[in-house]
């Protein structure tokens, strides 16, 4: 019946996994539990597996339930965005940046726009800076809601409730953003030197309503899972990222801060108006799944604080540089520049080389998930397969950013 299906040749990643098994058997490290021999199996987890949150494929070597080895395979969502930059003007490229890391696309735009501004020496209007911080922090909350929601849904039936509550509240943020930018996720909102539209009438009040409503919601989420025995047992002490891992592999964002590393580009490489704002860099100590979850929850509170301050301090003036028209065609002088920005997942930055023409001659993304994913073989090996799912959920990957 299935004769017309060809068995595909194993690809390089599977071959590598099989080769590693052979090598470990040759070294005499074969699996032997209580004198019983078990054969190791190579399983493809993904690229269409719901717990990988995208098209991530993990080639997992299993010994029973124990994960022996992991080889991540990426590139299923590769859209050659770095190549696309070669034939688009700086201005035309803004909407494409949105589509890299689509859960916090406004933060990606921010990194790109800041790099071009630095390269071309464009000053941003003060009102626009505040609007940027407001939108950036709102999207940080929205992104953390997706991260925590889907991660708890991976863990237990309890999370299925959580994910719906979180998506419900994220909807409020998306509504605010839609009113402001006209789009729910792919905003195309930042311009060189400012933002595309000023805040519409009544937007500030509606944003304040959200700020008033949301702290109560965070308490609700915490009441749902923080004292749940199953949640705690599955998350505490599992999937520990050590400080040495952070230093070796360039882990950034909440994943690094959960290990007790105080690294936040809003503080350590201050950009925009962050130096004027009062906020804390949230850190935890253990670096396990639970601490990463806690960091995200507390960061949402800090983001609320930041948005509130910005609404209070919001200056009058133009939200766009000069006249109503944005600088559509800009030609930065030859040179190169890298600017990193604190994305919800870590350091997101763009490196741009200009040859003096209207097109960037080279554009490169530094994506936090790409760097965090590199730790997976080390992080998942030695855990049970069910824990591996929990750990990969807690790292919070967005494949659009990894594959570019």
């Amino acid at each position, binding site marked *: 019946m299935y004769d017309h299906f060809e068995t595909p040749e194993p690809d390089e990643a599977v071959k590598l996994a099989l080769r590693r098994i052979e090598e470990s058997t040759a070294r005499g490290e074969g699996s032997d539990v209580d004198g019983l021999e078990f054969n190791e199996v190579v399983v493809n987890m993904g690229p269409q597996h719901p717990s990988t949150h995208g098209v991530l494929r993990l080639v997992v070597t299993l010994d029973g339930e124990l994960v022996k080895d992991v080889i991540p395979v990426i590139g299923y969502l590769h859209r050659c965005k770095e190549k696309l930059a070669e034939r688009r003007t700086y201005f035309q490229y803004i909407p494409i940046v949105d589509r890299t890391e689509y859960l916090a696309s406004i933060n990606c735009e921010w990194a790109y726009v800041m790099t071009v501004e630095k390269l071309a020496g464009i000053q941003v209007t003060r009102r626009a800076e505040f609007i940027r911080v407001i939108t950036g922090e709102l999207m940080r909350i929205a992104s953390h809601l997706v991260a925590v929601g889907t991660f708890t849904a991976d863990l237990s039936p309890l999370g299925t409730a959580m994910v719906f509550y979180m998506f419900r509240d994220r909807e409020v943020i998306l509504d605010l953003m839609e009113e402001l930018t006209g789009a729910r996720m792919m905003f195309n909102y930042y311009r060189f030197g400012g933002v595309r539209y000023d805040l519409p009438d009544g937007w500030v009040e509606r944003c304040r309503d959200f700020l008033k409503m949301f702290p109560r919601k965070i308490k609700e989420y915490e009441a749902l899972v923080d004292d749940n025995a199953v949640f705690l047992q599955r998350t505490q002490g599992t999937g520990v990222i050590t400080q040495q891992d952070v*230093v070796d592999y360039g882990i950034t964002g909440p994943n690094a801060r959960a290990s007790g590393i105080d690294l936040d580009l809003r503080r350590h490489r201050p950009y925009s108006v962050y130096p004027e704002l009062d906020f804390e860099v949230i850190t935890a100590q253990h670096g396990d799944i639970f601490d990463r979850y806690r960091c995200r929850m507390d960061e949402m509170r800090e983001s609320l604080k930041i948005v509130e301050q910005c609404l209070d301090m919001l200056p009058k003036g133009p939200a766009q540089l000069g006249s109503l028209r944005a600088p559509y065609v800009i030609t930065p002088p030859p040179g190169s520049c890298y600017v990193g920005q604190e994305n919800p997942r870590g*350091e997101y930055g763009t490196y741009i080389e200009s040859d003096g023409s209207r097109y960037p001659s080279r554009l490169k993304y530094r994506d936090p998930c790409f760097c965090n994913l590199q730790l997976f073989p080390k992080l998942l090996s030695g855990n049970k397969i069910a824990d591996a799912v929990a750990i990969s959920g807690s790292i919070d990957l967005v494949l659009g950013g990894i594959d*570019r």
Partner: protein
Amino acid sequence: MDIDAIAALLLERFAGELTDVRIQEPDTIVAGCARERLEDVAARLKADSEVGYETLNWIAGVDHRTSFEAVYHVYSWKTNTWIELHVKVPKADPEVATVTGVWPAADWHEREAWDMVGIRFTGHPDLRRILLKDDFVGHPLRKDYVDLAENHPHV
């Protein structure tokens, strides 16, 4: 230590090895490095007791038409500054020594630079393509790359 002091210190300790040292405001030092010296310079930059560039941030492969370039961006926790190393790689022989032994994070970044620009990192433990399929032909971020249907047989 402020950025000027770090630049002076690097100029003194790596005299002749780091070339064209300049400061990119506010916190990055940009320097060139000969590709033969890269492995040694990287190891010493990491081990330096005062600056200590310990975390590799990213590596970019760049095609400058006449030559390639590998750009290394490294973070120093001690001083909260970055260094950007530019290593020229000739087109005829696009090879550079791997730095995975110094910075473990280099593994995937070097694979990406190989995949996209075709710079070969000698000594890399597992230099496979990373974003493109295994059987892809060519390196798309080269300026002379021409996209043909034959280049991606499985699409």
